[in-house]
């Protein structure tokens, strides 16, 4: 910690603090109380969209990675194609394809219009969640393919020799080791996923980014909402990085 407090750094920090004070005093922040409620709602929506898409996406990424690493060719080829297509096209295009495409297709079927799901399918967030999850699954499927492949084959054979069943080998040896190896990459990818969430604002999901755009449109204040928004995203990204560092320290000791 002592290395951190070098003279020039104290100067830089003082400069940064000065900038913050200057910004607080001279820029316009009077809009904050009016939009605080909306902002918190937006923040909450960003966070659960991120969290759910991570869980769903990762649940899909595991079979995708496994199919590519060890599956038969009729499973591996489609999985590889899925990952290539997702990674080769912009997320914004995928979101619009799913929202406008499926959104214009569904109402044509009376069966869907009368189903229990229709109240949800009329909203935008299911499409956003689907697009974000598919995207995360595509990128992480590729990561998990590498991770599954990097576990030494001898370990799996040893586990088999101990009489573990195929599923037990997967659950107790293969998956934990692959996860431990993938953790640093997954941390970076999760921050990328966070940075992808504001794209869903383009399909009318009101998350934190679209609240900021609304402040800009209502009040013609340009920089202040954007700067505050950048701070919010930096805080979330920092929390994600810290979380993954904790996970790494907890789950990767003794990995060569």
């Amino acid at each position, binding site marked *: 910690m002592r290395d951190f407090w070098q003279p020039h750094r104290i100067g830089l920090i003082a400069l940064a603090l000065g900038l913050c004070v200057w910004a607080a005093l001279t820029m316009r922040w009077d809009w904050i109380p009016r939009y605080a409620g909306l902002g918190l709602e937006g923040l909450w929506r960003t966070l659960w969209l991120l969290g759910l898409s991570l869980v769903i996406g990762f649940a899909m990424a595991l079979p995708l990675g496994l199919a590519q690493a060890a599956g038969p060719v009729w499973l591996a080829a489609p999985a590889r194609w899925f990952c290539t297509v997702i990674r080769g096209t912009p997320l914004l295009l995928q979101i619009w*394809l799913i929202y406008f495409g499926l959104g214009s297709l569904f109402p044509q079927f009376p069966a869907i219009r009368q189903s229990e799901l229709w109240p949800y399918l009329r909203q935008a967030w299911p499409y956003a969640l689907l697009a974000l999850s598919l995207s995360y699954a595509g990128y992480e499927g590729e990561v998990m393919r590498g991770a599954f492949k990097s576990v030494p084959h001898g370990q799996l054979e040893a586990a088999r020799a101990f009489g573990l069943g195929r599923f037990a080998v997967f659950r107790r040896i293969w998956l934990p080791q692959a996860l431990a190896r993938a953790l640093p990459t997954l941390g970076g990818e999760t921050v990328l996923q966070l940075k992808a969430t504001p794209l869903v604002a383009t399909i009318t999901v009101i998350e934190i980014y679209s609240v900021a755009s609304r402040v800009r449109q209502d009040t013609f204040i340009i920089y202040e909402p954007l700067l505050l928004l950048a701070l919010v995203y930096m805080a979330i990204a920092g929390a994600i990085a810290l979380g993954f560092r904790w996970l790494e320290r907890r789950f990767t000791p003794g990995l060569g």
Partner: protein
Amino acid sequence: MLDWLYSLWPGLETSVTLLSLEPPGWGGNLLRGAMNSLIIALGAFALGCLIGIGGALGKLGGGPVTRDLLAVYTTVVRAVPELILILILYYAGTDLLNQALRAFGYRPVEISGLAAGIGVLGVVQGAYATEVLRGAIQSVPRGQLEAARAYGMTRFQTFRRVTAPAMLPLALPGLSNLWLIATKDTALLAIVGFSELTLETRQAAGSTRAYFTFFLAAGALYLIMTLVSGRIFGWIEARFRRGQAGARA
């Protein structure tokens, strides 16, 4: 010629008419948009590499203040969504430029979407390129640099003759990843209203209501771009790795 296909798949004929290059179809617009995307991606990637070289050299050999400022730059850019950076840099960049112009007695100008797109995406790419190139430069063995020094080469000569060729094979996988990100990030400029592939697609889809046709066609165009450039990068990598058998990143 295609009649048997049309009879098999009735929707195909409308899709083909919609995608045709002549005005009733929107294919020309899509291709123009794809061209714009490609130009922006190339410009942003080139700018990003330049910033990256400067940033990497600054991080490795600069003074303490330069190093800290560069650390702030790469950290902030990598933590804040590109969309927000594009908006901030777009507004702030136009503002600053016009203020500077006014201070020197010129009239304010409207920055073209192309220049703004290249500039903004270049700054974003630069942060990632800094990290990629820093890692690659760091893995050039010190002895080679010392040998170059001992031969009496200046710092610039050392960089051009030793560091750059030795680090390139190590940097190429990272750079090719960055290029893919650049092609896909151009889609974000659709949100600031620049008519690249994604925005052209949305306009075509919106006015014909043939969403699947156009979004799938645009997806195919992006996919062609990424697959072809993947091939090209693979070929470049193979070329630069020649004579480096076993020396893998």
